[in-house]
């Protein structure tokens, strides 16, 4: 009997997937930490293949991002838009509304803010001008987010494609303004929009523009909104199950519209902070992929606003650090993108190991990475 059992074992599939029971928090964090480690190891292999010793490269990346007050400020400046746009898309994602149009919403916000910065800076006192710019930016982003939501609510269009295409429309709008109506005459034909007057520039606190305070406040507000407010509760229910939301008497389309207005407004605000706080002008590269990286930020933090702070700073560190390694090691800038991609891949991939385990033929359970 036992002999046949052994024989039968030999025919067993080599690897089987079995469902795990719910695992403890500590174990879940351990798996995530292992995934992070694994992504760094994979990145190290890549660096080795490029002919570099990975350890000094990693070290220089960290030094390049936090090694001095100057670079730290630079890192924070990169993190601010990532964080706020991340909050924006997280609201939509929580509702399972795939808003990948943050890029376009950022640009439209920036366009609206720039109008006031360029043409109304003399008519308004500075504080009022900055507030009006902020409100205009939020309105611009909100409208850019609202349109796909309207179509989704009314005709059930695919919001992923819709928001994606809206990015290109926004980008072309900016190009049009840059090459046409808003071209700076002082540039003598070079297609560039004028730098903002000092009145239209954001003040600094601790030598970084005031946007970081806005970001911290927004993290707290969005966290409270999602967990404590009725509207946040509605977002969760709609995201989990639309039939349940309808059953509970919620107006699903209203939740779609309202949430996309907020999501778009946050992205629009991001655009404002970029033009008024960092670049002091509007250009085709104002959004510069922030809207897409924000999606990464939102997912890596599991849509949790508090965790998003850490993730945004971490990704900013990678971007800033890769500038450094470009100069010291001549590693292309794209290396940071590859590393971010690897981390995302491993972090999202490890979710599988939170729910399933692999069983190798000898019967030992191995929740391997």
């Amino acid at each position: 009997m036992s002999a046949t059992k052994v024989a039968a074992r030999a025919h067993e599939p080599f690897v089987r997937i079995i469902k795990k029971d719910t695992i403890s928090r500590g174990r879940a964090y351990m798996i995530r930490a292992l995934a992070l480690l694994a992504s760094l190891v994979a990145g190290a292999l890549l660096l080795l293949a490029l002919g570099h010793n990975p350890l000094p490269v990693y070290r220089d990346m960290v030094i390049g991002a936090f090694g001095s007050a100057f670079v730290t400020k630079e890192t924070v400046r990169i993190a601010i838009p990532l964080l706020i746009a991340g909050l924006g898309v997280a609201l939509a994602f929580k509702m399972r509304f795939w808003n990948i149009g943050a890029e376009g919403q950022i640009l439209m916000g920036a366009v609206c803010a720039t109008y006031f910065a360029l043409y109304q800076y003399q008519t308004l006192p500075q504080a009022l001008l900055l507030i009006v710019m902020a409100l205009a930016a939020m309105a611009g982003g909100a409208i850019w987010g609202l349109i796909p939501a309207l179509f989704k609510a009314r005709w059930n269009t695919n919001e992923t494609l819709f928001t994606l295409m809206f990015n290109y429309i926004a980008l072309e709008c900016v190009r049009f303004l840059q090459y046409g109506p808003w071209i700076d005459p002082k540039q003598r034909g070079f297609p560039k929009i004028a730098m903002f007057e000092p009145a239209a520039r954001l003040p600094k606190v601790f030598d970084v523009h005031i946007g970081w305070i806005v970001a911290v406040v927004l993290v707290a507000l969005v966290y409270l909104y999602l967990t404590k407010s009725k509207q946040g509760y509605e977002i969760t229910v709609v995201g989990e199950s639309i039939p349940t939301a309808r059953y509970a008497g919620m107006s699903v389309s209203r939740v779609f519209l309202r949430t996309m207005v907020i999501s778009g407004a946050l992205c629009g605000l991001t655009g404002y902070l970029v033009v008024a706080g960092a670049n002091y002008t509007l250009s085709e590269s104002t959004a510069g992929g922030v809207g897409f990286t924000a999606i990464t930020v939102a997912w890596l933090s599991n849509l949790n606003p508090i965790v998003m702070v850490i993730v945004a700073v971490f990704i900013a560190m990678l971007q800033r650090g890769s500038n450094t390694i470009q100069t010291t090691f001549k590693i292309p800038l794209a290396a940071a993108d590859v590393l971010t991609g690897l981390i995302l891949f491993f972090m999202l991939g490890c979710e599988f190991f939170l729910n399933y385990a692999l069983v190798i033929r000898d019967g030992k359970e191995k929740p391997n990475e």
Partner: protein
Amino acid sequence: MTPLAASEVAVQLTNITKTFGKVCANQNVSLNVKKGEILALLGENGSGKTTLMNMLSGIYFPDSGQISVDGREVVIRSPKDAFDLGIGMIHQHFKLVDVMTATENIVLGLRGGMNINRAARAKEIKEISARYGFVLDPDKKVYNMSVSEKQTVEIIKVLYRGANTLILDEPTAVLTPQETDKLFEILRNMKNDGKAIIIITHKLNEVLQISDRVTILRKGACVGTVQTREASVKSLTEGMVGRSVNLEIAREKLNQTPDRLRISGLTCKNAEGVKALDGVSFTVRGGEILGVAGIAGSGQKELCEAIAGLYPIESGSILYIHGDKTEELVGLKPAQIVQKGVHTAFVPEDRLGMGLVASLDMVDNVMLKSYRNTKGFLVDRKAPKALADTLIERLEIVTPGTSTPVRRLSGGNVQKVLLGREISSDPAVLVAAYPVRGLDINSSYTVYDLLNEQKKKGVAVLFIGEDLDVLLELCDRLVVLCAGRVSGVVDAAVTGKEQVGLLMTHAGGQAEIDAGAKNANGKGVET
């Protein structure tokens, strides 16, 4: 192990164990089925019947244990392995391609040349049909078939592939009593032809009617195997539940039964533009449980959702009468219905997909309909928390706590959360769609008690059921639906199962059947 000659045993399972995470679905289960025998595999929901059979048909792989077919030890790694060994399973949910004919579905996936040669295949299929007594048109498209015909295709599909051992997972759940009888006739023919048949079920009457032996599972373990002729409903229940259970359902007749919902001429079209409900008219009374019987998909879901304001209504009226209040519900959205002061509660069929939010905890789930009632921007979770605690205590809900996602609770406890929330809203009308589906005996009786309690409080209860025995025992009256129309309204106390079965399949000639029922009963039929 068994005193029988090995050649007689078609399939033998020995000490099969299978775990999912910490849940032990099967623990050291052994059973065998012989050629020319019908074995009933009996057990409550969640006792591991289907898991065990899925291992036999190659869908799961056992953690340990041995399977032998015709006395030879085998390893079944995939459904194909199972087929090669002559084991075929007919699943509860059919796996057919709608746009293909019966023949095409039957030969689908089999090896062969480029040409199917439909005529030859159809002839083979006709032979199988004639041999066992199936009635099937090989050229009929699946989307034109009734549930029973689809099941026939599934069974022939398995036979066509040369199966000697057939496993049927709850085959009667979707059939009318008449169709069930026909199926049993066919199963007996197959048995006489030397096939080994395993039928998974939790309906005791059917076990006694069809099987030769019964293997009972309880909580994943094998309780024992008995000869059917030595078994009774009582002994089988005790085996299944582990103690003796009172299977009587109380039915108290109340004197005060005022009309509460008057539904007339209700017509709804589904997404394809087909009438899901067609001129449905009946009255639901307070202090009474009105059962809705019908084959699955006869319009039950649409009826419930129309009453709850969730389904678009073409025409007709749903009049709500409570005291001196009269409201027309057609044209109102769920939120508007609540605003008008209409107290309807609805326990939907899809508990975790519609009634509850699976990933949220109990507190967030019990406030699903009431979170708007407090003032202000923020959610007040104090009252829902208190309600959740009350429900846990009163309905004996087994849960690690109010902050555990409801998805982690067992089926019975999920239903208690849902039903508890709906009842706690003090409804005047309670619509319960398949409230005991998938529940064990104990939880089912808790649900019946809760519904009876509501009835005594004067609530009008609309009970959508599938088990005719339960419907006839629990309800005061039955509305029978057939293809979206009311084919009869009968008094449950004086109506037989056969009559209801006839009504369930009789769409057109409503008057005739009603008259027939009237003659048979002498009373108790109204339309």
